[in-house]
């Protein structure tokens, strides 16, 4: 019994590490936020306004074409971003990722965060 205990702990830790490694970043988004839809979606002017906001706030790090710089500045035209729900993206904009240099954009009005997301969705 005593010998089995470390093995059980090791297995549990390994399983946890495996789950963490395979989990999507968006898995941490609360269900309520994940399910949200963009209330401004579908209006052409929303993406136009989002483009302006993107230029003001996001372009500095993510580049004018949202491709990043291929090295340190992350692209927003990845499968992960495309696969995220609007709610995931709004949650992430609000939270930021301070550890990795992404500021929280909770200081932007919520409507402007939705406009940015509409613009990102409009990218080819």
């Amino acid at each position, binding site marked *: 019994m005593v010998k089995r205990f470390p093995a059980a702990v090791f297995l549990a830790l390994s399983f946890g590490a495996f789950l963490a490694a395979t989990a999507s970043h968006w898995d941490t988004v609360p269900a309520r936020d994940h399910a949200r839809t963009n209330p401004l979606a579908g209006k052409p002017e929303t993406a136009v306004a989002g483009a302006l906001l993107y230029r003001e706030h996001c372009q500095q790090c993510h580049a004018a074409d949202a491709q990043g710089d291929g090295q340190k500045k992350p692209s927003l035209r990845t499968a992960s971003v495309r696969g995220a729900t609007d709610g995931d993206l709004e949650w992430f904009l609000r939270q930021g990722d301070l550890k990795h*240099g992404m500021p929280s954009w909770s*200081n932007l*009005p919520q409507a402007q965060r939705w406009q940015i997301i509409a613009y990102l969705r409009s990218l080819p």
Partner: protein
Amino acid sequence: MLLLASHRLRLAAFLLLLFVSLPFRGTAQDKPYFVTYSHDLEEPGNLEVETKSAIARPEHGHHFGALATELEYGARAWWTTELYLDGQTTGGQSTLFTGFRWENRFRPLMHEYAVNPVLYVEFENISAADKNVLEVVGHDVESDLDVPNAVARAEHQHEGELKLILSSNVHDWNISENFISEKNLGHAPWEFGYAVAVAHPLRAASSGRECTLCAEKFIAGLEAYGGLGDTWDLSLRQTSHYLAPVVGWQLPAHMRLSFSPSLGMTRSSMDQFYRVGFAYEFSDIDNKLLGHKRKGKVW
């Protein structure tokens, strides 16, 4: 004399060239508060230069204008460091450099919550002639500002200051509360103060067009601040309290202007004084000037 003028001209030309060659970016939705801090930090790698002026005429003193020049740098997304250079000019007296402040703000929690704490640590080396009123603590009163410059400048204050900043963004409102404790590093008591503020943009959604005088470029609010006594006399007796409407305007070329009239609420306060702030932000300055690349994370 001519040589000196030529040097100054070249220096001015160099500074102008440096100024126009650096990329400007927006500081939209920065809070127009003059005393209260929200949990907004400077974006990493950016440098914001802001001047904050205070103009007043104390009841028994000369009119004055004080200017604080603030250099705010985003060291990390969770850490902002700032240097203030303070000065003032008092009518009929003199113009003085009154000292400097070095402050740091840290976000200890990496996520956004209903209430977001920020820890603030400051060291200041200023003379008693400082009139910027960037915070009110202890038993700061109007008569402190009546002391002639020639006398006040001789008194130097080395002070440490701690603030607990709590701030929330709720339905496009920002609500911020600051609890201030300040200690003169000499034999003096801890002094306490507070600052609270709310602000809301005049229009939440962007219109999608470049404009200057449109509602989305304005943010308005109200702040209140004052002293709460000190460890020798923890009371509101002889303390100053102010109520100040604030308005911020995002200008073209990504500059920002803010304005606030402050109204004294107690007999120890100045009746009124006015503040004007002007800011612009240099983006990605460490990359442009020092060649540092910041690490991002690919999602």
